[in-house]
């Protein structure tokens, strides 16, 4: 009764692959896991890429200007739209990068997300104001139309007013060199 390597009964043809199946399936899982390690599990790609920027008309930041920021401002030129808030610590880290871009002539607009206007104004007075237009989104509704799920986020808009890229989190100098500058250069052509 003990089952040694029993060759008494001829093995039926075609069964061998069944025993290979587990290791093959596992290999597939291993490949998925290895590739999965490469990606950032927490970054959500935007579904708005290559789609027109959503409609919005946001009131101005009192004390800064009185024009506000609307969808129409996005037509005709390549621009960045930055979602920021004075209470957001990474925004402070990112701010010098935006200022540098503005100095280089890149148009940078901003949506001020769920902020107290006085705090937002103080933020810009202290750290500098690189923004062409600033719109106040106190309820965060415009940001939801943009598919924003955290601050800061930065969108690249082309001349036709389409969203071409979204950066999640603060723009680090290396993001600038690797992705943003080449993209801006391409869109400017």
């Amino acid at each position, binding site marked *: 009764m003990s089952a040694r390597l029993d060759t008494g009964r001829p093995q039926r043809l075609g069964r061998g692959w069944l025993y290979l199946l587990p290791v093959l399936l596992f290999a597939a899982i291993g490949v998925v896991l290895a590739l999965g390690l490469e990606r950032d599990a927490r970054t*959500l790609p935007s*579904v708005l890429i290559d789609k027109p920027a959503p409609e919005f008309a946001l009131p101005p930041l009192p004390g800064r200007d009185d024009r506000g920021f609307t969808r129409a401002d996005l037509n005709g030129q390549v621009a960045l739209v930055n979602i920021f808030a004075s209470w957001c610590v990474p925004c402070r880290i990112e701010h010098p990068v935006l200022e540098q871009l503005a100095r280089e002539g890149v148009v940078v607009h901003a949506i001020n*997300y769920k902020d107290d206007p006085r705090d937002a104004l103080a933020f810009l007075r202290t750290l500098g104001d690189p923004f062409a237009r600033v719109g106040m989104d106190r309820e965060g509704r415009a940001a939801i139309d943009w598919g924003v799920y955290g601050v800061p986020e930065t969108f690249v808009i082309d001349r036709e007013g389409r969203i071409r890229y979204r950066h999640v989190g603060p723009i680090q100098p290396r993001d600038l060199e690797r992705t943003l500058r080449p993209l801006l250069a391409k869109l400017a052509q």
Partner: protein
Amino acid sequence: MIRARLLLAVPLLLLALSARAVTGPDEMLADPELEARARALGKELRCLVCQNQSIDDSDAPLARDLRRIVREQLVAGASEAEIKRFLVERYGEFVLLKPPVSPATWLLWAGPFLMAAAGAALVWTFVRARSVRPEEVTELTAEERQALERLLEGGSGERTR
């Protein structure tokens, strides 16, 4: 809404999962039927900034905003499908905890039943291969009956019925 991962100087903290259910009394709709629909829908929508919570369970400000949008749209007469479409247009299918059936999810939805069916087919071939040899069956039964008798004499308390 500040992304926690950017601030985690300590790399090995467990992520916070305190305070899950937070649909507050101030958010609820007066109409109990609409409110029930809002709750049910909220359980199918993912809180994007949390890890794996529905907006109904999450304390995050974005989840609160989305709960409010769900309720506003329900009050305005929108259907569940319309509200889902509204959110998918902004956040992608990631926002749906129940992935819709589409070419990308055919395997996901069919998978369990395909696997069960494949398993059943395997079981069937196995059992058939083992039960269609009457001559072998009787032979082995005799041999095993002996073994069984020996077992019983050994008093091992095994069931024999």
